[in-house]
């Protein structure tokens, strides 16, 4: 094994993650190569130095605080009865399914309305003619009875028209 090959495997060798044969090869190389031995010793030194990072011990009230936080998390959440509903609709799969279903239903209903267009047109025509009959049946278009205010106004208007001519 050459130096660069051994050095590439130093990290895995240190962590005992190499296959037994390879572990043995790196070990033998280290025995025979002082430069690599020195380099590996530096790596080991750093690894050992990391052990000086002191661990901490949880405070006795850790669990009590945790229970308090769990209870608070329930209080700030939605009412219990509807939690399943929010969870159900917050799922991306359900939201996508609902969206697709909405599009399909919309398309289906739209097609039905377009297909049944001829029937409403006939109905519209009937409705229009009924409206026209109602308009023409109004007495507004009857001749104005003589002597009424309307008759006088029309006479006055026609007189002023003739006067202009």
């Amino acid at each position, binding site marked *: 094994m050459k130096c660069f090959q051994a050095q590439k495997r130093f990290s895995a060798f240190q962590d005992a993650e190499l296959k037994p044969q390879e572990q043995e090869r790196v070990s033998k190389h280290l025995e025979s190569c002082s430069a690599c031995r020195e380099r590996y010793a530096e790596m080991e030194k750093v690894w050992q130095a990391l052990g*000086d*990072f*002191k*661990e901490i011990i*949880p405070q006795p009230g850790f669990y009590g605080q945790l229970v308090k936080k769990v209870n608070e998390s329930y209080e700030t959440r939605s009412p219990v009865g509807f939690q399943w509903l929010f969870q159900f609709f917050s799922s991306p799969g359900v939201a996508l399914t609902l969206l697709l279903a909405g599009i399909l239903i919309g398309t289906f209903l739209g097609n039905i309305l377009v297909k049944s267009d001829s029937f409403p047109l006939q109905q519209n025509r009937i409705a229009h003619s009924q409206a026209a009959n109602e308009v023409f049946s109004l007495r507004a278009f009857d001749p104005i009875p003589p002597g009424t205010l309307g008759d006088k106004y029309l006479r006055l208007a026609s007189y002023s028209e003739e006067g202009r001519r």
Partner: protein
Amino acid sequence: MIDPLISDEELMAETAQGDEHAFELLVERHQSRMLNLIYRFVGNRTQARDLAQEVFIRVWQAASRYKPRAKFTTWIYRISANLCLNELKSSARKKLFFSESLVGEGRTPNEENNVSPSAEDILLAEERSRQISHALRSLPENQRMALILKRYDNLSYHEIAKIMECSVSAVESLLVRAKGNLKEKLVFHEK
């Protein structure tokens, strides 16, 4: 009374039924490991305590949905790792910088065992610990997480890969780079 030899997976099943004693036992078993993992990652005791509690809140909330496909420890480590990485991102957004005060929330084992080393020893140990914490926090997040899981939790590359959701060769590569970077940082601190 719960059998203390009961497995974590069985305790989770009990927790899912609303058994608070089972949950308490789970917390007792894993709180120290999770607290220290997070502490080493974020470098702040108060923040580590809050995040460790958040891990267990998530365990409690997910108990009914938990399916023991993987080892419970792998699952809880994954929750912690994700929380750490997310916390770091949100802290960066809030422009918060971690600073560790010597008067912390947790206690070191020496304080716990009432061993009374000299004041100078305590200061030196605190200083060494602070330097290592600083060097660790200077590593990129993924390298730091892989290194902490290997060095302090003694997990295999395979387990680390499962927790970090990457390949074994990626873990190996992260550790090679982390060790190389750390060597430079710690040499810098010795100067």
